[in-house]
């Protein structure tokens, strides 16, 4: 009997191949979208890791000693539990060669964090050197294999420590410095006991890109889920229709004696099978997509992994399982209610398929009330405040509420249009659009979410980009960053470079303000500061007040946590000062206070500068030579200008990839519309035939079909704009603050909106192109059948 039931159920699909296609394609696209976003997120992470890696050497404390560190000291430190990693470096033909020990180097250092399979290549034979093209080209000829790795900082090549020693003709037993990992065992013997004579050079402060990018990831993850929600809308529509249409069949089967439980059970099984097939298809699609969208990644990977191009893009079991799970889960989510209704259907109920998604006026009103309530809930949560969970709850309420409100809103708008339309054709177009609304509303909701996600993504990414760029400009405006090692040499540096560079000493102490841990820093009174720093808020002439010691700047985090605002006094060692400006200090967990240099030196006379930013007025080579004369070698100098340009380039790449996400979600929403229009097409003839008989041509009807869909898409796009902005605002101003304690300033990009609006119209027009063409080509005999005596 089961076989008979299965055959009967399956026969439905043979007669409705379009529906089957919709169902499988919808699920596959939802899965592909999710996998695609995952890939983009992974790309973003890889980019940040790369950016972090180039900053890597500066991120860690280092152990150094005049004349080098003996291998024995290194071994002793490791034995004692110290997590340190040796570095040998030098210059060869103008290229800086950095030799690392991949086995002990902390994560994030090196081309990318390597796993074991890459080690062999890194360590084997004559070895390989990794670097950007320019650096590899500048390297003198040698036996080492050159591997292109665009992520490596400019002018630098990375290689294994032994290879570096060989290239530089150095004794591998003498180490230049040791990198100290961030995390150390809780109890290690003091440095002096294990290896006396080593100096610990503390990490370079400044932009903590890692924390800044965590926020970006959180936002991208939120959008990844949103993209999946768009897909689920499609699946929901397709599954709902597939089950509704088979109600008569189920009734017949039951009347013929098939137990309900078996029928429901088998339909569930069928759905599972379809979901698995669709999930596999979606996975392949997402995979192809990632490959197409991320050529940069592939190039990078090719450079790093040699022959193993597929390395990171190979099918990871976890990824595949997650994609299948998403597909099955999505189908279950969408199918549960449909199955439940089938299971509850009384045997004698009308077997006629219920009109699909027919809302009716009361349904619309209910939907409007529910949507408004959800929006109110979202607003309430924001007002009351709360943690990250509350923020996400508010986000969810906002999105579902917005989606629910769309059909009632569209209905009102179309009714208004119909009332005010001039001319019979326009009037019919509006009224007809209104009639089509119930059948299209799921697809339109998907479009709404896709558009809102688009506005949200572009706002978020745009805001992030300008913030990040401005922030890098502010923090990395020096050309070189030099660690002199100690105060005396620092003083010598200032004297030696006078007239050849603007020297910006890093004067810093840590302390506490109103119970908040802070860094207190000095800013020298030079025009470069005023030119590059941007404030979140400032009183009149903040730089003048700072230089004359009449005021201090505080960071946003400190202002928030200590409840400080402009003009209020910040309690500092040596006397309180009024806050004259609040500056952004994204990503820094500690608060920050900036004082004028004179005021700082008066309060902290014991602090001398060991590190300096340099704005060069003389050629870089000359400055480097002067520094070398002071005993400051290249390892203590960071090329900040190159670093900044490089970091921006890496981020730019990620930003451009997110643009692809936008187009993709819209494409999926467009597909949802196409499928809805095609399933509605059969019910369409009786609605258009009388219009045709009254004197419109079929071509005109086809054009109306296009216009109507574009109209609906346009209205949806208009509704999506405020929703998307609200979404972006929540992410930047609510979720981000809850998660990281600082607010990403929101910027508006009306140009993007115009482009998106045009894209939405295009998606609508493309989705209706085929149905419209079919309508325009309908044979008259088919239209006349509508009026025939028997139908």
């Amino acid at each position, binding site marked *: 009997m089961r076989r008979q039931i299965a055959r009967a159920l399956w026969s439905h699909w043979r007669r409705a191949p379009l529906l089957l296609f919709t169902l499988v394609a919808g699920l596959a696209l939802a899965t592909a979208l999710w996998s695609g976003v995952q890939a983009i997120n992974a790309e973003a992470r890889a980019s940040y890791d790369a950016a972090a890696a180039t900053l890597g050497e500066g991120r860690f404390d280092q152990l150094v000693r005049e004349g080098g560190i003996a291998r024995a000291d290194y071994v002793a430190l490791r034995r004692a539990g110290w997590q340190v990693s040796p570095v040998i470096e030098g210059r060869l033909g103008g290229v800086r060669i950095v030799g690392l020990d991949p086995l002990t180097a902390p994560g994030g250092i090196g081309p990318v964090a390597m796993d074991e399979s890459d080690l062999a290549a890194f360590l084997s034979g004559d070895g390989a050197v990794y670097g950007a093209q320019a650096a590899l080209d500048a390297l003198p000829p040698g036996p080492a294999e050159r591997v292109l790795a665009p992520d490596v900082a400019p002018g630098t090549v990375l290689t294994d420590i032994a290879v570096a020693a060989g290239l530089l003709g150095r004794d591998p037993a003498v180490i230049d410095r040791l990198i100290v990992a961030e995390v150390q065992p809780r109890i290690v013997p003091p440095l002096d006991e294990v290896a006396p004579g080593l100096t610990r050079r503390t990490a370079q402060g400044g932009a903590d890109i890692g924390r800044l990018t965590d926020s970006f990831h959180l936002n991208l993850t939120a959008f990844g889920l949103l993209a999946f929600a768009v897909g689920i809308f499609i699946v929901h529509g397709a599954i709902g229709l597939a089950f509704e249409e088979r109600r008569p069949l189920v009734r017949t089967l039951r009347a013929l004696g098939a137990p309900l439980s078996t029928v429901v059970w088998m339909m569930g099984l069928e759905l599972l099978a379809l979901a698995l097939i669709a999930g596999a298809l979606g996975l392949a699609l997402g995979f192809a997509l990632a490959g197409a969208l991320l050529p940069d990644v592939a190039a990078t990977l090719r450079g790093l992994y040699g022959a193993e191009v597929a390395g990171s893009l190979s099918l990871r079991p976890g990824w595949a399982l997650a994609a299948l799970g998403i597909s099955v889960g999505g189908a279950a989510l969408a199918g549960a209610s449909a199955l439940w209704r089938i299971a509850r259907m009384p045997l004698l109920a009308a077997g006629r398929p219920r009109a699909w998604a027919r809302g009716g006026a009361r349904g619309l009103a209910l939907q409007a009330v529910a949507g408004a309530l959800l929006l109110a809930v979202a607003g309430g949560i924001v007002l009351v405040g709360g943690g990250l969970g509350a923020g996400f709850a508010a986000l969810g309420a906002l999105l579902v509420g917005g989606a629910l409100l769309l059909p009632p809103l569209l209905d009102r708008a179309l009714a208004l249009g119909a009332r005010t339309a001039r001319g019979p054709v326009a009037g019919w177009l509006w*009224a007809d659009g209104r009639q089509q609304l119930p059948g299209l509303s799921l697809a339109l909701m998907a479009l709404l979410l896709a558009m809102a996600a688009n506005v949200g993504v572009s706002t978020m990414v745009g805001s992030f980009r300008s913030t990040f760029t401005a922030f890098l400009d502010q923090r990395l405006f020096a050309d070189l960053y030099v660690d002199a090692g100690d105060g005396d040499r620092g003083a010598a540096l200032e004297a030696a470079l006078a007239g050849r560079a603007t020297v910006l000493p890093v004067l810093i102490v840590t302390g506490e303000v109103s119970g908040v841990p802070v860094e207190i820093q000095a800013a020298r009174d030079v025009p470069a500061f005023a030119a590059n720093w941007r404030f979140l808020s400032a009183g009149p002439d903040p730089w003048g007040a700072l230089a004359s010691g009449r005021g201090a700047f505080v960071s946003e985090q400190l202002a928030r946590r200590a409840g400080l605002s402009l003009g209020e006094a910040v309690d500092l060692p040596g006397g309180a000062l009024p806050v004259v400006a609040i500056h952004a200090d994204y990503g820094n967990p500690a608060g920050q206070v900036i004082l004028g240099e004179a005021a700082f030196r008066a309060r902290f006379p014991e602090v001398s500068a060991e590190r300096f930013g340099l704005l060069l007025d003389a050629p870089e080579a000359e400055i480097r030579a002067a520094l070398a004369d002071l005993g400051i070698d290249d390892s203590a100098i960071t090329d900040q200008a190159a670093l900044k340009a490089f970091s921006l380039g890496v981020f730019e790449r990620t930003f451009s990839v997110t643009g692809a996400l936008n187009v993709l979600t819209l494409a999926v929403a467009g597909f949802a519309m196409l499928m809805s229009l095609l399933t509605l097409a059969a019910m369409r003839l009786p609605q258009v035939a009388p219009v045709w*008989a009254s004197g419109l*041509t079929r071509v005109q009807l086809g054009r109306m079909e296009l216009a109507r869909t574009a109209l609906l898409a346009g209205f949806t796009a208009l509704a999506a704009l405020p929703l998307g902005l609200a979404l972006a605002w929540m992410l930047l101003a609510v979720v981000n603050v809850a998660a990281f304690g600082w607010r990403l300033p929101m910027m508006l990009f009306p140009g993007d909106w115009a482009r998106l609006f045009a894209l939405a119209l295009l998606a609508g027009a493309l989705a209706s192109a085929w149905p419209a063409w079919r309508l325009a080509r309908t044979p008259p*005999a088919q239209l006349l059948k509508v009026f025939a005596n028997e139908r």
Partner: protein
Amino acid sequence: MLLDVKGLRKSYPGGDGPVPVLRGVDLSVRGGETLALTGESGSGKSTFLHLVAGLDRADAGSIWLDGEEVADLDDRGRARLRRGTVGIVFQQFNLIPSLDVAGNIAFQARLAGRDDPGRVADLAARLGLEDQMAKYPEDLSGGQQQRVAIARVLAARPKLVLADEPTGNLDEATAERVMEVMTALVAETGAALLVVTHSERLAAGLSRRVHLARGVVS
């Protein structure tokens, strides 16, 4: 002559080649004339009406309607014909479901550029539809729907009104009332009327009667 049909032929594709339905129909109708067209089921009455109204294309023959050869017209020309010159009432499903009764009645007239709210109100009153104007087709009975369809055609003031069993779905009393109103209104506008009907009584009320059998009119 308002309508002059000569040697009209039409066949439909069948299992073993084309099946001829009309095999050379000749018919002339003067302005203001009222005709009943009778014939067995399947004899091709609807087919004939559709060809005259420019809804479908004939295989051969000519249809001169108000000085124009329908066969020479393209889609747009035929649409123009349907808007202004000829109006057709089908047996059912005449109405545009997304428009209310008032919108349905005025639709064709407005398309033809003969919008006249006074006439719409007058027609509605004469056909007993005053109270239904804000309703939608799905909320009307079959008879009401047919009256709306008749009002729609008459509001557009066509020169030729075609009606394909307009009362086929109605009970006899209602059918008679609807036909009476229709003939009266057509007479007022001076239009010609061609009605397909099986009813002897309805046919008797019209000025001429033609019969379609074996593909020709007698």
